[in-house]
C-alpha cells in the first residue's frame, strides 16, 4: 500500500507545486497587467477622442492634425534629421578629401574644415534646449541651495529677504526676457565669445524663474531641523561647517529635492517660452518657426513638438526622482 501511495503522493505534491507556481506567476502577471492596463486604456481613449475631434476643427492651415498625421510628421522629422546628418557627413568628408589632396601637393599648406552650414533639425533643437535648460537649472541650484541654507539658519536675514522672494517669485519669464536680453547684450561683449548671447539670455531667464521653489524649500527645510538634533550638534560643539554638512544639509535633503523637482519643471516650461520670444535656438524656436512657416504640415509638426516637450519634461522629472532616491535617506 505504502509503495503504491508514495509515488502517487509525490506526483500530487509536484503537481500541486506546479499549480502553485503557475498561479503565483499568473498573480504577478495580472498585477503588472493592471499597472500597465489602466494607463494604456487612458491613452487609447485620449487618442480616440483626439482622432475624432481633430477633423472638426478647421483652421486657416487646414484641419487640426489628428494622431495619424502627427505620427507621420514625427517620422518625417526623424527622416529629415537623418538626411541632414548624412549631408553634413558628406560635406565634411568632401573637405577632408580635398585637404588630403592639397597636403599631398604641398605638405606646408594650411587647411581647415568648416562646419556644415545647414539649418538645425528637430533633434538638434531638442539637444540645444536640453543643454540650455540644464545650464539654467544648475546655475539656479548653485544660487538657491546656499542662499536657502543661509536664510534658513538666520531668522533675521530671512525676515529681511522674504518680501523680495514673494515679489519676484510670481514674475513671468516673458517679463524678465527683454531686460535680460538688454543686459546680456550690453555686458557680455567679447571678441571670442565662449557662449552665444541667445544661449545666455535663455539660460539666465530660466535661472531667474526656476530658482524660487528650491530657495524656499531649502530655507524651510533648514529652519525645520529637529531641535533635538540641533542640541546634539551644540553638545558636540560641531563647527559651523561640520554643523551644516553633517546635520543641517542631510536633514533637509528630502525637502530640498522636492523643491528641485518643482524648479526643474518650471525651468523646462520657462525655457520653451523664452526660446520662442528670444529667437534663441531650441524647441521653442522650432515651434515659432513652424508657426511662421504656415505650411499644411506646420500644425502636425508643432503638435509633434508639443508631445516631445511633454515627454521630455516627464523624463526629466523621472531622472530627478531616481537621483533623489539615490541621495535622500528617507527614500
Amino acid at each position, binding site marked *: 500500500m505504502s509503495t503504491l501511495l508514495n509515488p502517487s503522493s509525490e506526483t500530487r505534491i509536484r503537481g500541486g507545486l506546479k499549480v502553485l507556481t503557475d498561479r503565483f506567476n499568473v498573480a504577478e502577471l495580472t498585477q503588472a497587467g493592471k499597472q500597465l492596463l489602466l494607463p494604456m486604456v487612458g491613452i487609447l481613449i485620449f487618442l480616440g477622442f483626439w482622432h475624432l475631434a481633430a477633423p472638426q476643427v478647421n483652421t486657416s492651415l487646414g484641419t487640426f492634425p489628428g494622431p495619424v498625421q502627427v505620427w507621420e510628421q514625427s517620422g518625417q522629422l526623424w527622416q529629415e534629421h537623418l538626411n541632414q546628418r548624412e549631408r553634413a557627413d558628406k560635406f565634411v568628408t568632401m573637405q577632408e578629401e580635398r585637404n588630403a589632396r592639397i597636403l599631398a601637393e604641398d605638405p606646408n599648406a594650411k587647411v581647415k574644415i568648416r562646419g556644415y552650414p545647414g539649418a538645425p533639425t528637430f533633434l538638434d533643437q531638442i539637444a540645444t534646449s536640453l543643454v540650455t535648460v540644464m545650464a539654467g537649472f544648475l546655475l539656479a541650484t548653485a544660487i538657491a541651495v546656499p542662499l536657502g541654507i543661509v536664510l534658513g539658519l538666520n531668522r533675521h536675514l530671512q525676515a529681511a529677504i522674504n518680501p523680495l522672494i514673494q515679489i519676484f517669485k510670481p514674475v513671468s519669464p516673458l517679463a524678465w526676457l527683454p531686460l535680460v536680453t538688454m543686459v546680456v547684450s550690453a555686458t557680455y561683449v567679447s571678441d571670442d565669445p565662449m557662449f552665444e548671447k541667445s544661449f545666455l539670455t535663455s539660460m539666465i531667464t530660466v535661472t531667474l524663474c526656476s530658482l524660487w521653489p528650491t530657495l524656499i524649500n531649502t530655507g524651510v527645510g533648514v529652519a525645520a531641523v529637529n531641535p533635538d538634533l540641533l*542640541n546634539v550638534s551644540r553638545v558636540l560643539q560641531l563647527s559651523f561647517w561640520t554643523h551644516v554638512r553633517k546635520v543641517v544639509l542631510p536633514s533637509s535633503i528630502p525637502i530640498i529635492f522636492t523643491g528641485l523637482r518643482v524648479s526643474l519643471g518650471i525651468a523646462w516650461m520657462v525655457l520653451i517660452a523664452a526660446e520662442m520670444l528670444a529667437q534663441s535656438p531650441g524647441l521653442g524656436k522650432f515651434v515659432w518657426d513652424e508657426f511662421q512657416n504656415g505650411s499644411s504640415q506646420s500644425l502636425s509638426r508643432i503638435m509633434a513638438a508639443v508631445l516631445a516637450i511633454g515627454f521630455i519634461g516627464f523624463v526629466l522629472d523621472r531622472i530627478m526622482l531616481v537621483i533623489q532616491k539615490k541621495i535622500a535617506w528617507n527614500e
Partner: protein
Amino acid sequence: MTKPHLELTGVEMAFDTPKGSFVALDNINLKIKKGEFVSLIGHSGCGKSTVLNIVAGLLQASKGGCILDGHEINAPGPERAVVFQNHALMPWLTVYENVELAVQQVFRKTLTKQERRSWIHHNLELVNMAHAANKRPGEISGGMAQRVGIARALAMKPSVLLMDEPFGALDALTRAHLQDSLMSIQQDLNNTVIMITHDVDEAVLLSDRIIMMTNGPAAAVGEDLYINLERPRNRVTLADDPTYVHYRQEVLKFLYEKQRKLENIAPHRNKKATSATTNPSAQTAKI
C-alpha cells in the same frame, strides 16, 4: 572640605513671555559628588528639564550659575553629554556613524583612526548594540535606538552624564531591561549621572540621591533624599525590602501629599507651559 564636583548656586530661570516674565526656577542650590547618581523628580512643568538644560549649557540661567570641576558652565560641551528622551539620533546615519560623529568630534586629535574604531565598537558592545552597527535608527526599535543614544553619550567620556527622561518613551519591559543595563554600566564606569524621571520606582532603584522639586512656577528643591541601598541592586528582591519600600513611600508622599497638583486636571493649565516654548514650525510656515 573638598570642592564639590558639580555645584549649582542660586540658579534662577526666568522666561520672557508676552504676559511678562515667567519665573520657572527660583534659587536652586545643589552640590553633587563625583560618581553620584542623582535623579530629579517632580510633577510635569516643574522645571526639571530646565535644570538639566542649564547644566548642559543649552540654556543660560538668568541668575546664579553652575560650576563643574572649577569651571563655570556657559556653553554646551561633550564633557556634559546629554541623552535625550527621543534618542535624537541622526536618521540618515547608521548606528555606527551616529556614535562615530561624536567620537570623531571629541577624540579627533587624541586617538588614531584604529583606536577610534575600536572605541566606537566598545561602546556599542557596552549597550549590546554591536550587532546593529550598520542599521539606520528607523530600522531598529525605540529601545534599541535609546541604547545607541546612551552609547553615543558614553563614547564622549563625559564627566557628567545628563539624561532627560531617557526611558520615558519606552514600554515597561524594555524600560526595566535598560535600567538594569544602565545600573551595571554606571557601576563599571562610575560616571556622575543626573537623570530626570517621572517614575518613582526608577528613581529609587537607580539613584544614590533623589532631588524632589516643588511645583512651578518658581520651582525649587523640595527634599533631598539619599538612598542607602547596597549595590548591585536587584529589582525583584528589593520589591519586598522594607528600606526600599520606605524610600519609595517618602517620594510618593512628597509628590502626592506635599506637592499635590490638583489643577493639573484642568485643561487650561497646560496652555501656560506651552506658551513659554516657542514653536519653530510656526516661523517657517509663513514663507
